[in-house]
């Protein structure tokens, strides 16, 4: 096996090395920061996964989705349902916990992905504005349904979820999400996603099965959103339907717009930046007793669209810059 020529093998090696690296880092990180900063670091990682997955749907495939928080909530509730309601969590031997956790996260991701399929299907017939409203509506419907399901807590929320999410988990998942999107784009299907974004009719005329790629983007995007939701639930140890309202979807949208629609690097950078900015703005809020954060976000969104619609990075990636360009080969 010549590893230089086998991209699957190489990607596998990169994946394992990456996961080992983040779990290794996870052993050090918590000792460096206090619990508060650590909390923010964790949320930042969870947001990275959410942003990268939405970027696949909206930035790369061009399907404006306003219900990403809905997928997160489904994944979060599905995973937490397994670990909190179904399984006798307290009796699971510690050695098995990582396995059970990985399984639950995967389950959450799959349930979200199925829903992604359901939401993606109408997108066969809907474009732009309509799709935006429909995804928004789906997000709302999911929230209303969760509110009415008593076994997962309904309006009260679901407390008592085991705290299994660690630094290693959060950043490994984020890493996997980035890797998946990169591999997808580098594959022969990659151009098809971009073609759908650039011009659907032209893409179809060129023989691209636009339906398939739109639905695929929704499924993969929803899967990772679901997994990030699962991580969120197992970090906070409590879930409430109100957490995943439209504002949450909007926060993820602004992340990918700020980073540059279509740029995975941009999505990662903006997710990290905005999560820390939120906390940095906290003192402002406490002094004024007014919530300026959403004003700043929405104002930023408008100004960005008017002056720099491509965000900070446009569709560029880290591998398009100076030193990192040498790694570009890894894509192909």
């Amino acid at each position, binding site marked *: 096996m010549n590893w230089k020529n086998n991209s699957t093998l190489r990607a596998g090696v990169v994946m394992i090395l990456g996961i080992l690296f983040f779990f290794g880092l996870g052993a050090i990180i918590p000792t460096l*920061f*206090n*619990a*508060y*900063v650590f*909390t*923010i670091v964790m*949320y930042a990682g969870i947001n990275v996964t959410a942003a990268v997955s939405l970027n696949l749907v909206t930035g790369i495939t061009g399907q404006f989705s306003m219900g990403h928080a809905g997928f997160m909530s489904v994944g979060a509730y599905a995973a937490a349902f397994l670990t909190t309601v179904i399984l006798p969590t307290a009796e699971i031997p510690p050695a098995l916990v990582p396995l059970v956790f990985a399984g639950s996260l995967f389950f959450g991701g799959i349930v979200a992905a199925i829903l992604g399929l359901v939401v993606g299907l109408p997108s066969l017939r809907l474009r732009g504005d309509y799709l935006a409203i429909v995804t928004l509506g789906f997000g709302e419907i999911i929230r*209303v349904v969760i*509110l*009415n399901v008593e076994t997962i807590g*309904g*309006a*009260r*929320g679901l*407390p008592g979820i085991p*705290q299994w999410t660690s630094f290693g988990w959060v950043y490994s998942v984020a890493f996997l999400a980035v890797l998946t999107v990169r591999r997808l784009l580098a594959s022969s299907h990659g151009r098809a996603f971009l073609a759908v974004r650039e011009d659907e009719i032209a893409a179809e005329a060129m023989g691209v099965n636009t339906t398939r790629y739109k639905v695929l983007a929704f499924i993969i995007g929803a899967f990772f959103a679901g997994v990030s939701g699962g991580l*969120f639930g197992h970090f*906070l*140890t*409590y879930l*409430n339907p*109100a*957490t995943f309202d439209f504002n949450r979807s909007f926060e993820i949208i602004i992340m990918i717009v700020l980073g540059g629609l279509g740029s995975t690097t941009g999505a990662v*950078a*903006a997710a*990290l*930046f905005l999560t*820390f*900015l939120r*906390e*940095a703005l*906290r*003192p402002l*809020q*406490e*002094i004024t*007793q*007014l*919530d300026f954060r959403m004003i700043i976000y929405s104002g930023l969104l408008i100004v960005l669209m008017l002056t720099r619609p491509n965000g*900070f*990075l*446009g569709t*560029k990636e880290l591998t*398009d*810059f*100076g030193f990192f360009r040498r790694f570009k080969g890894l894509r192909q």
Partner: protein
Amino acid sequence: MKFHSSFFTSVLLAAGTLVLAPGCNKSTQTGSTATDPANEIVIGEVGSLTGNEATFGTSTRDGIRLAIEQINQSGGIQNKKLRVVTMDNQGKPEEAATAVTKLITQDRVIAILGEVASSRSLAMAPIAQTNKVPMVTPSSTNPKVTQVGDYIFRVCFIDPFQGSVMAKFAHGTLKVKKAAILRDVKNDYSVGLANFFTETFKKLGGEVVVDQSYSAGDVDFKSQLTSIKTKEPEAIFVPGYYTEVGLIARQARELGIKAPLLGGDGWDSAKLTEIGGKALEGSYFSNHYSPDDTSEHVQKFIAAYKAKFGGVPDGLAAMGYDAAMVLADAMKRAKTLEKDDIREALANTKDFQGVTGRITIDHDRNAVKPAVVLEVKSGGFAYKETINPS
């Protein structure tokens, strides 16, 4: 090279905030102006100061401020002044969790006051419990909150009791046999009260003829009320927040429903009668305290509150005040100002005379105390009766 510069700017900014974030812990402070850390006791407060439920958070905060000021004026605790660090959570559970983490790890508070809503208390409680920091919630009425662990206390009654209060009142005082329910499904508090009302009311021999629901934020309730009207209930239990209850009352009267409305402490606001107008006259709700209470310490509290903030304190302000007072009382009785000793003292709170009644912390760390029933009368709230826990 345009992309270069902006890319690195964003990376730098991100890195900058990463470095700055831990340093940004200048929070608003109330109470003492003392700067010597050896002479002050720092406690944390988490509340919804912005967002949809801002009014609840600010009322509670004002009550706490008043209590802290009075404690410090009368010499503080063990010769130390109290200082409260207040943090906002925008009414979101995950924000409440972050805020409480910050209070514990960065501000090194030895006790926490909050939250109003049970959903946010439920997000905060595991963190306080893990760090063994005593937490006193002023008004989270869901039973689950204090079940999180032995460091979590509350100074209010719980939903099962409050639900039963109105059931007993409806059955006993109003002689109602057939009641209807209109609950807010978006709200755990409302759902809880509705369930416990139904349970007690049925046990007493009454009948719940119809159970309808709405979502907070709705403005049109006519369809639900039309359905309720056909069942001819003698009273309608609407355990929601005042924001919707006013409109519900108006539309009920418009449809010709004469039955009185009954509710819980979520009704307690001057806005209730402003929005509801005459439609609410003759309706009743359960509350933590009545501003009509003539006992001396209640009137003193009301006078002090009026002097400081203007306006009559609502139930949440009174609860905030009592939560802070109960905590201060426990600190005075505690052997040392260590968290464990404060916890111990809190658990032993007995017959503490608060403005919302005599507070005894029971085995489950809940407050055992009476509820009052208020009547909406000529645009205000009049004391009707007190119902004691059985």
